[in-house]
């Protein structure tokens, strides 16, 4: 009886307790001291809130992208949503009831306190770092609001994760930099992926293509081709793969609007760390202008060559075909002279004489013209190095008799090695020395030949005589074709020697001129390329 009594007593105590609790529950509900009741519904336990239809807002709070916590004024976390718990890498249940300071470093705690103080005015906002469960720092924007509900002051914080934004910022900064570079470069620059889609194109590239080419296929936006045909993306990519880069390959482009360009294509590959081709960076340098200029120049040179050839042919024809009738003219006039000299009136003889002279002179002119036409023709091969000293010696040898007869004194300084054809140098010396002999004054001829060099490898040769000199007014004229300053009664010659000299000198890119005063001798000077001169050409 005692045991069952004991049991009964215990049982009663237990029942009393449970009753008390049940009554308490009912009382609490009746008094409105509860937030919600839990009821076993058709789909399981359901919670019915007793304060207002907050369901949608609850969902919002729970599901929203930002983290949110409700804190008491001392920083105790009364509530947090899933997002916040994820931010700090801690289970929700552990976050609720913990101190917010758990998730702040010392520095950030100070910042947080400052924010709370600032929230006294209703709202405050600031950036700080949260310390996540894995000891990582998460940059966040904290937005604090004072929350008064039923007389109780709490704080509501909305926390926005700035990690993404920060990263994007960095990317955006980098993006901005590379975009700036891309835009500013004067060369068309294009970035394509491995399949040829244009990912980036600078301003210059867009202008070249004539449209906004972003995300277009490279082959479509830039229809380029070389001598092997169209340069397709696959060809380009495989070339870049095999050669690791393309440097200044000449290509042509023909746009849909019919514009043609000549371009230099360079391509560099973009490799992933795993050696996979991500894409290429291409530059297309517009050389159309340059090419056109080159072509125009080539055409001009061709025309010039043709023109020269025509002239030469003409000159040759003229002199050659004119010679025949001239010959007859001369001979028949002589026949006239022979048969009728003295048999016609007195002047007739003179007329005939003059006709014969004229014919002979014309013959010489034609011969000289022919000589002038061919004056600077190149013998076979390129200009070799010639020792001017030996050439001068050979030429002087042909004047031996003249030198002896006139008691001429000819001296020379050391002459350089020149990059010209020997026959041309020979002709130059020949003509100038011959002139010196022809136009020497009363005193015996004194001739001095020397050379001085310039920095760029050209040489200036000088032939100085003590002859009759040339007045300044005629310094240019003397080099003209068939130009003479003296009547043929005083000095013979056709006036072609200096013209030939000029033609020869010009052929080597040099100049020839005279320094002289009437009655005081002359110095003829001309420039020619030396052995290592930049002007040296064949």
């Amino acid at each position, binding site marked *: 009886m005692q045991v069952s009594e004991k049991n009964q007593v215990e049982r009663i105590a237990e029942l009393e307790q449970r009753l008390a609790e049940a009554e308490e529950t009912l009382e609490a509900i009746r008094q409105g001291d509860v937030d919600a009741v839990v009821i076993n519904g058709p789909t399981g336990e359901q919670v019915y809130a007793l304060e207002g239809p907050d369901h949608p807002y609850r969902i919002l709070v729970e599901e929203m992208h930002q983290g949110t916590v409700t804190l008491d004024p001392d920083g105790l976390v009364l509530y947090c949503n899933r997002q916040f718990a994820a931010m700090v890498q801690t289970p929700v249940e552990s976050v609720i009831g913990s101190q917010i300071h758990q998730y702040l470093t010392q520095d950030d705690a100070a910042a947080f306190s400052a924010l709370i103080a600032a929230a006294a005015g209703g709202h405050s906002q600031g950036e700080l770092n949260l310390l996540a469960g894995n000891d990582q720092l998460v940059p966040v924007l904290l937005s604090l609001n004072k929350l008064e509900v039923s007389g109780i002051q709490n704080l509501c914080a909305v926390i926005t994760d700035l990690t993404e934004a920060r990263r994007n910022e960095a990317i955006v900064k980098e993006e901005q930099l590379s975009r700036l570079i891309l835009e500013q470069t004067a060369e068309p620059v294009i970035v394509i992926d491995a399949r040829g889609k244009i990912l980036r194109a600078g301003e210059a590239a867009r202008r070249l293509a004539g449209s906004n080419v972003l995300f277009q296929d490279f082959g479509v936006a830039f229809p380029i081709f070389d001598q092997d045909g169209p340069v397709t993306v696959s060809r380009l990519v495989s070339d870049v793969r095999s050669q690791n880069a393309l440097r200044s390959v000449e290509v042509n482009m023909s746009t849909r609007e019919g514009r043609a360009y000549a371009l230099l294509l360079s391509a560099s590959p973009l490799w992933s760390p795993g050696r996979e081709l991500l894409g290429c960076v291409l530059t297309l340098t517009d050389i159309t202008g340059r090419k056109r200029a080159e072509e125009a120049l080539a055409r001009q040179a061709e025309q010039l060559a043709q023109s020269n050839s025509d002239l030469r042919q003409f000159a040759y024809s003229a002199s050659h075909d004119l*010679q*025949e009738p001239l*010959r007859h003219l001369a001979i028949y006039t002589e026949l006239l002279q022979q048969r009728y000299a003295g048999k016609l009136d007195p002047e007739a003889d003179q007329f005939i004489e003059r006709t014969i002279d004229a*014919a*002979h002179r014309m013959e010489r002119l034609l011969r000289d013209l022919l000589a002038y036409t061919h004056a600077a023709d190149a013998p076979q091969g390129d200009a070799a190095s010639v020792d001017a000293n030996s050439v001068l010696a050979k030429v002087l040898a042909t004047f031996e008799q003249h030198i002896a007869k006139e008691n001429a004194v000819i001296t020379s300084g050391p002459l350089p090695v020149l990059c010209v054809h020997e026959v041309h140098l020979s002709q130059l010396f020949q003509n100038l020395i011959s002139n010196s002999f022809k136009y020497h004054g009363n005193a015996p001829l004194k001739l001095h030949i020397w050379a001085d060099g310039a920095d760029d490898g050209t040489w200036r040769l000088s032939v100085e005589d003590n002859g009759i000199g040339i007045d300044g007014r005629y310094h240019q004229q003397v080099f003209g074709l068939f130009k003479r300053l003296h009547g043929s009664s005083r000095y013979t010659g056709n006036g072609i020697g200096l013209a030939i000299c000029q033609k020869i000198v010009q052929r080597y890119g040099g100049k020839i001129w005279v320094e002289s005063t009437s009655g005081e001798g002359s110095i003829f000077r001309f420039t020619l390329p030396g052995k290592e001169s930049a002007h040296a050409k064949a």
Partner: protein
Amino acid sequence: MTEGAQPDRLSLLLVEDSPADVYLVREAMRREGLRVHWDIADDGEWAIRMIDEVDSNASTPCPDVMLLDLNVPRCTGDEVLERIRRSPRLAHTPVVIMTSSESLDDRDRLMKLGATEYFRKPSNLREFMKLGRLVREVHERSVPLK
């Protein structure tokens, strides 16, 4: 060997198209005192036809000397010269080439083709008249062969 049609006359075949030069050549022979029987062809084709005739007809007389201007119409002087040297009857006949060209290459080439003498047509009378003496000498040199 056949002789000229008239024994005391030199038989000359002149291939020349310029009448002015023809006159001068005749004048040159005249001044040299040569009495000439002239056969004149004014183009290369005609000259060759004349040679053909000589070859095909034994009774046609051969010229003693031939004067050949290089610059005649139709066939070139080279071709005529070649034809001459191919001819059985004229293979050894002296041929004097006349030309206004100054080219040395021409001279070499023509001597190789069988020319006997090379005369450059001068532009003064005295020199031209020397042709007469040249023809006489060339003929006299060739006579022992006949």
